[in-house]
Structure formats: structure tokens, C-alpha cells
């Protein structure tokens, strides 16, 4: 343990927004996400000896959280037959701004992905982890993460291509009207 209590507290505090975002995508609801975050914070505090300073605190905490989630999840599954995918469909809070219809579609499509693919995609595509870190967090091989991410993208592309085929075509550059990225204009 290299971190003093006040430093540890500040460091954990700083990770909460990311943790919550990952928790929401794992658990599918804000309430369960926050319970998960709380559990993770307590475990991280209790086992801070296991953290090596200089390595990624975020990756370490994500690992704790993911393990916590899956052990709770297995327990819960034994208690209540949780309809998988139902939780996933409720995933994440309603969009803060209006006018993002296709973001809602996207969220739904994301919710329909198999959990392992969704998780890999989020770790790589949104949380900004490297494939190595994601593999460590998920306890699997780097190649497995890569293929999960690929399959997630393929699946989302198929769904998006179907659900928004009409919207695509010429409109694609308008998707993020606020910040039109020059990269889209070939």
C-alpha cells in the first residue's frame, strides 16, 4: 500500500464518474449501478494493498467492479430468473438532450449486444483502455477482446444499417450537426 488515506480517497473519488458509466453499462440500471459502485469503492479501499502505484488505478478498479458484478449477477441469477437482455434493454439513463433520436436507437442496439461484446466495445471504444488493459480487466486473452470488439461492431453495423438505412445515404455527415467533422468529407 503506497497511498495514504487522503490520497487514496481523492484518487478513488476521481474515478467515480468512469466507474459509474461502466457500472451502468454492466448492470443496466442506475440503481444497481450505484450499488455496484459503492461495493467497488469499499472493496478497493479494503484491498488497496493490491494496487501497484504507477499502474492504472482505473483499470484496477474496473477489474474489481467487474468481478463484483459477475459474482453478484450469478448469485442473483440463482435467486431470481433474471430475464437477460431485459436489463440490457433498460441500459443507461435517458438522454439528457432531446433531438437525439438515433442515439436512442443506438443505445437500444447496444443493449441488445451479448454482454461480453458490449463490455469489450465499451472498454475499448469509450473508456479508452488499451486492448492489453481490457484483456486484464476481463480476464481473457487480448485476441479475445479484439474479436469481441469486432463482432460487436459488425453486429451494431448490421442493426444500424437496417434501422437507419433511410437516414443514411447523403445525411451521414449531418449526424453530429454540432461538430461536423471534416473527416467525414472524403
Amino acid at each position: 500500500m503506497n497511498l495514504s488515506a487522503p490520497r487514496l480517497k481523492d484518487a478513488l473519488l476521481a474515478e467515480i464518474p468512469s466507474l459509474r458509466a461502466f457500472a451502468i453499462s454492466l448492470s443496466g440500471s442506475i440503481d444497481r449501478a450505484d450499488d455496484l459502485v459503492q461495493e467497488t469503492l469499499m472493496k478497493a479501499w479494503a484491498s488497496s494493498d493490491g494496487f501497484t502505484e504507477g499502474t492504472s488505478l482505473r483499470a484496477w478498479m474496473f477489474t474489481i467492479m467487474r468481478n463484483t458484478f459477475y459474482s453478484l449477477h450469478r448469485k442473483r441469477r440463482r435467486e431470481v430468473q433474471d430475464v437477460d437482455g431485459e436489463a440490457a434493454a433498460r441500459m443507461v439513463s435517458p438522454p439528457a438532450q432531446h433531438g437525439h433520436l438515433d442515439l436512442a436507437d443506438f443505445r437500444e442496439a447496444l443493449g441488445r449486444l451479448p454482454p461480453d461484446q458490449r463490455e469489450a466495445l465499451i472498454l475499448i471504444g469509450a473508456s479508452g483502455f488499451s486492448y492489453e488493459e481490457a484483456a486484464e480487466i476481463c480476464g481473457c486473452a487480448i485476441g479475445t477482446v479484439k474479436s469481441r470488439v469486432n463482432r460487436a461492431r459488425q453486429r451494431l453495423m448490421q442493426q444500424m444499417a437496417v434501422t437507419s438505412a433511410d437516414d443514411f445515404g447523403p445525411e451521414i455527415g449531418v449526424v453530429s450537426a454540432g461538430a461536423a467533422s471534416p473527416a467525414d468529407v472524403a
Partner: protein
Amino acid sequence: MNASRDDDRPTPTLEPKLQAHIGRQLRQLYDQMVSEPVPDRFKSLLEQLESRETPSAAETDASAPADTTSEPSQVPR
């Protein structure tokens, strides 16, 4: 022999744009979640944990049921 082509099968021409689109939406969604304000319960949880670690900072906190050794008077009947 078996279908290992599943992952790298060439997809229709929409792919690069769709892929970029997916990437943007994913980040947009995630950024929304990350920018949610941190609930107070987490701050106070961490403060509790901290004060437990450094007992000098807090006096006796009655709320912590941590050690029962100090009060053997309460015997459940």
C-alpha cells in the same frame, strides 16, 4: 474448414462511415454517463472510510458498529 471468416468478412460499402458513426455515438453515450454529477453518498462513503483509517481525525463515531468489544452491556435476550 469451419467459419473463421465471420470476423473479417468484407462488409458492404457503408462500413467506414457506419463504423465512424458507431464510434461517435458510443463516445457520446458514454460521455453523457460520465458527466453525470457524482452522488453525495459516494463522497460521504469515502470520507467515512478515511476517518476510520485515521481515528485521530474523528472522535468516537457512534454510527460505526465495527467493534462490539467495547460495549458488552447490550445482551440480546
